[in-house]
């Protein structure tokens, strides 16, 4: 217990002390000020136990234990094109329930840096990353390092990405730094080429070293994908060929082998279809891949997607595994899957249907089985308060193999109804339900039935959910009847940056023959989250600022002017870039230039501030006619295009009314509006045509800490006429 308390204290000090130290000694830890820091500390204690028959004590014998977790994240943006993200996840684990190991564990660490404003853009990753080349060569979480370069060769139409990596498959850094860290290691590289409209090609190679019965070896792969149009069909073809060369023979006596995969998928209007073929020879055994070795597989799918969201798909799949062995198993599956959203249903009932038939036959006769399975789920709002769900399932398995000869039949019904509830400031739902099922194996029958109840309530920072589930099993002679009860309860309360959670579980089992047994667990946890943004001060290196406003030729990036920066600095940035001098115009500094090169009307850049600090930076672009005619509409579209190209899709886009006569009047009464917004670290950029008191019609773009509500007609630089 003492150990636990000490560890919790250590983690707590580590998390909060960091920030206190920074506050008191800004000079010493000043370098941290440019990083945004965040994370959480989670403490959890558990009590569990039970009584009676040990089989019923599913949570284990009487015990009290717990764990602490520290999650730390740091992020720094040197510029829009140069960023670093660091995260760390550590625990002190004294819990039998959590994970497999106890003690102090550094479970995850990840540092990712990338830079794009250099000749060869790069990305560096240290620590945890997802090692993925292809499904047939490597797909595994790794701890180690990876470097990626995205060089530009003469032909800039083709995108290149070259990666080199090395890493171990381990769950924590304790293992990584211990000898066990060498259990499974992968080293390799890949070169990816992508070209718009043509497709992608990946060359990759990985050497895998594994301790134990699996052979070490190298895997080389060539994978490609291309999309094309043919006879009105939109098609995608993907293929991979991979070769594995192992250092020792595997169970089939082979030490090398080939893998082939080809897939064609297409669509036309609502139709969707695809075919796929995979063949992996017995010697193809890459340790880091996600495939089933020594198999052949092919499938065909055909479906239709309706305009209202309903979908239906049929499939045929054929699989042969362990082809080199006497136990070779062939499986054939036919299936249909369909969904109908309630909104698309004539009767307001949402449906999901899942039917399949599966034939399994092994060469040695051990398995010979045909299973049929059908599932239907229907959901329907009964009235404004109640929503009902009905689930029906039926299955028949015909066994004719050597091992199992009895047929199995199953039928089950589940029904529940959810009612929305509001109670003393809390909102939630209440879901009673019932299930009934029968399974017959040969001449034995098992009937299962029982009620279920779920309750969920939330409000004022509190959240409560509870679930009760009873299952009675009545059987024929020879089998054991039993009554099982499961109760689960979770409660949490969030206040400020803190959260308190309680989880309780109870389980009991009362067999007709044998002893009653039950088990429980109660978990109490506390989580404190913290978040401290990076400093944004004059000249500071916030995300959206610090960059060069003129990095794009023919454009001015208003987000480079951070609200709060010294007006003089902003002014200097413009003037040192060789742009127009700024002149005072009332409370604003205004410069006339062709800030947007493609636009040939009058353009003014404006900086508005107070007490020497910038409040708003903006651009005022006059429209060619200013009367809302076709020329104005065209000019506005061109300006909008420039912003969309730079900042991507806006988070707010309001387009009300058309260009035309009396655009000034319609702007004021709200029947004509153009407002687009892009959020940023230090403010929001807005572009649009504001209503003006003087009746002028012009385009304005403003970057400011906040913007007036998009519904407000008048905004913009009213002070600049």
């Amino acid at each position, binding site marked *: 217990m003492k150990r636990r308390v000490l560890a919790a204290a250590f983690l707590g000090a580590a998390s909060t002390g960091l920030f206190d130290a920074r506050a008191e000694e800004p000079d010493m830890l000043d370098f941290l000020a440019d990083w*945004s820091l965040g994370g*959480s500390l989670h403490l959890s204690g558990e009590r569990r136990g039970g009584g009676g028959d040990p*089989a019923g004590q*599913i949570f284990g014998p009487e015990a009290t234990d717990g764990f602490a977790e520290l999650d730390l994240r740091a992020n720094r943006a040197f510029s829009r*094109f140069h*960023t670093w993200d660091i*995260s760390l*996840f550590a625990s002190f*684990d004294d*819990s039998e*329930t959590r*994970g497999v190991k106890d003690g102090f564990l550094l479970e*995850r660490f990840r540092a990712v840096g990338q830079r*794009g404003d250099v000749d060869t*853009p*790069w990305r560096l990753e240290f620590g945890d990353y997802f090692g*993925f*080349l*292809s499904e047939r060569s490597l797909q595994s979480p790794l701890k180690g390092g990876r470097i990626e370069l995205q060089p530009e060769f003469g032909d800039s139409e083709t995108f290149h*990405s070259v990666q080199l990596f090395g890493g171990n498959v381990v*769950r924590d850094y304790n293992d990584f730094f211990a000898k066990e860290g060498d259990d499974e290691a992968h080293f390799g590289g890949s070169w990816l080429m992508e070209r718009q409209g043509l497709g*992608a090609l990946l060359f990759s190679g990985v050497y895998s070293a594994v301790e134990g019965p699996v052979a070490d070896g190298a895997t080389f792969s060539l994978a490609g*994908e291309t999309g094309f149009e043919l006879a009105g069909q939109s098609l995608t073809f993907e293929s*991979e060929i991979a070769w594995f060369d192992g250092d020792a023979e595997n169970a089939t006596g082979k030490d090398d082998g080939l893998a082939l995969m080809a897939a064609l*998928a297409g669509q036309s209007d609502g139709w*969707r279809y*695809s075919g796929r073929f995979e063949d992996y020879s017995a010697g193809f055994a890459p340790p880091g891949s*996600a*495939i089933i070795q020594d198999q052949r597989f092919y499938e065909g799918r055909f479906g239709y997607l309706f305009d209202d969201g309903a979908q239906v*798909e049929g499939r045929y*799949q054929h699989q042969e595994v362990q082809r080199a062995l006497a136990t070779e198993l062939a499986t054939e*599956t036919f299936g249909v*899957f369909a*969904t109908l959203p309630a909104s698309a249903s004539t009767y307001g009932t949402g449906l999901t249907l*899942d039917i399949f038939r*599966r034939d399994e036959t092994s060469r040695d006769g051990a398995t010979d089985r045909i*299973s049929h399975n059908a*599932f*239907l*789920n229907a959901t329907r709002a009964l009235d404004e308060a109640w929503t009902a769900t009905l689930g029906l399932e039926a*299955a028949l398995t015909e066994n004719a193999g050597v091992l199992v000869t009895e047929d199995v039949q199953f039928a089950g019904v589940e029904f529940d109804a959810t009612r929305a509830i509001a109670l003393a400031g809390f909102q939630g739902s209440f879901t009673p339900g019932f299930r009934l099922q029968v*399974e017959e194996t040969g001449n034995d029958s*098992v009937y299962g039935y029982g009620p279920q109840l779920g309750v969920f309530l939330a409000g004022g920072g509190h959240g409560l959910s509870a679930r009760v589930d009873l299952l009675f099993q009545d059987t024929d002679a020879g089998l054991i009847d*039993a009554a099982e009860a499961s109760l689960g309860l979770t409660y949490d309360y969030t206040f400020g940056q803190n*959260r308190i959670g309680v989880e309780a*579980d109870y*389980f009991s089992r009362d*067999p007709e023959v044998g002893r009653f047994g039950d088990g429980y667990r109660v978990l109490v946890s506390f989580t404190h989250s913290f978040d*401290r943004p*990076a400093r*944004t001060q004059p000249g500071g290196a916030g*995300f959206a600022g610090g960059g060069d406003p003129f*990095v*794009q030729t023919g*454009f001015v990036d208003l987000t480079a002017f951070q609200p709060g920066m010294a007006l003089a600095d902003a002014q200097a940035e413009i003037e040192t870039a060789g742009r127009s001098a700024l002149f005072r115009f009332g409370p604003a500094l205004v410069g006339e230039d062709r800030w947007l090169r493609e636009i040939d009307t009058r353009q003014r850049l404006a900086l508005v501030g107070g007490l020497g600090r910038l409040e708003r930076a903006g651009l005022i672009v006059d429209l060619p006619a200013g009367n809302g005619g076709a020329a104005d509409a065209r000019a506005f579209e061109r300006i909008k295009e420039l912003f969309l*190209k*730079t900042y991507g899709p806006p*988070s707010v886009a309001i387009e009300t009314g058309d260009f035309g006569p009396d655009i000034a009047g319609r702007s004021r009464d709200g029947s004509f509006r153009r407002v687009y*917004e892009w*959020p940023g670290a230090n403010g929001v950029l807005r572009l649009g045509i504001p209503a003006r008191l003087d009746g002028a019609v012009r385009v304005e773009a403003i970057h400011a800490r906040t913007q007036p509500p998009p519904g407000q007609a008048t905004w913009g630089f009213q002070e600049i006429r």
Partner: protein
Amino acid sequence: MRRAIARNGTKFALALMAAILVGLVAAGSDGRGFRQAQRIPTPELLSEGRDASSFKGLGGLALDQPIPIPRPDVKAALETIFNRWGKGDTRLALNANFVNRDRLADLIRDLAPRDARLRVLEVANIEVLDQAIQPGKGPNGRDLLISRVATTATTQLTFTDRVNNRFQTLSGTNDYVIQMFHAIRREGDQ
């Protein structure tokens, strides 16, 4: 209504949308079986107005920095998935891009004991592998956050073994990669 995306100090609330953990994805829309480009933002890309992120698998805009996923949400998402284990809608718990999804779903439905129950006892080792945001795609026009999260979970399977006529409890600790959907509510949103 300000919609700052996951920036420094921005207060936002995440609402886990367990109900749409995965949806049916029709044939022909499977993810690619080999690695995708994750383009590093460059001034050229920006001036061409091209999307720097090409997270085809997640489908959305890149974030400047990861949004932390609350620990209870990871546990709740796993519970939602495992509650479907062995039930008729097992298939819906598996992502459309899951390798051999149908084969696994068919097999579980064929072989899982009918009274089996899979519990999540505890989670550990949480890491957000990647995230993307789909503006306006959440409920009530909110932004939808899609996260691929790695975690290690201790699970417990209980069922009646009818062959040996015995109640069985099997525990396991395994690594999972899950896809989570959150609706983002920020300060000032209605």
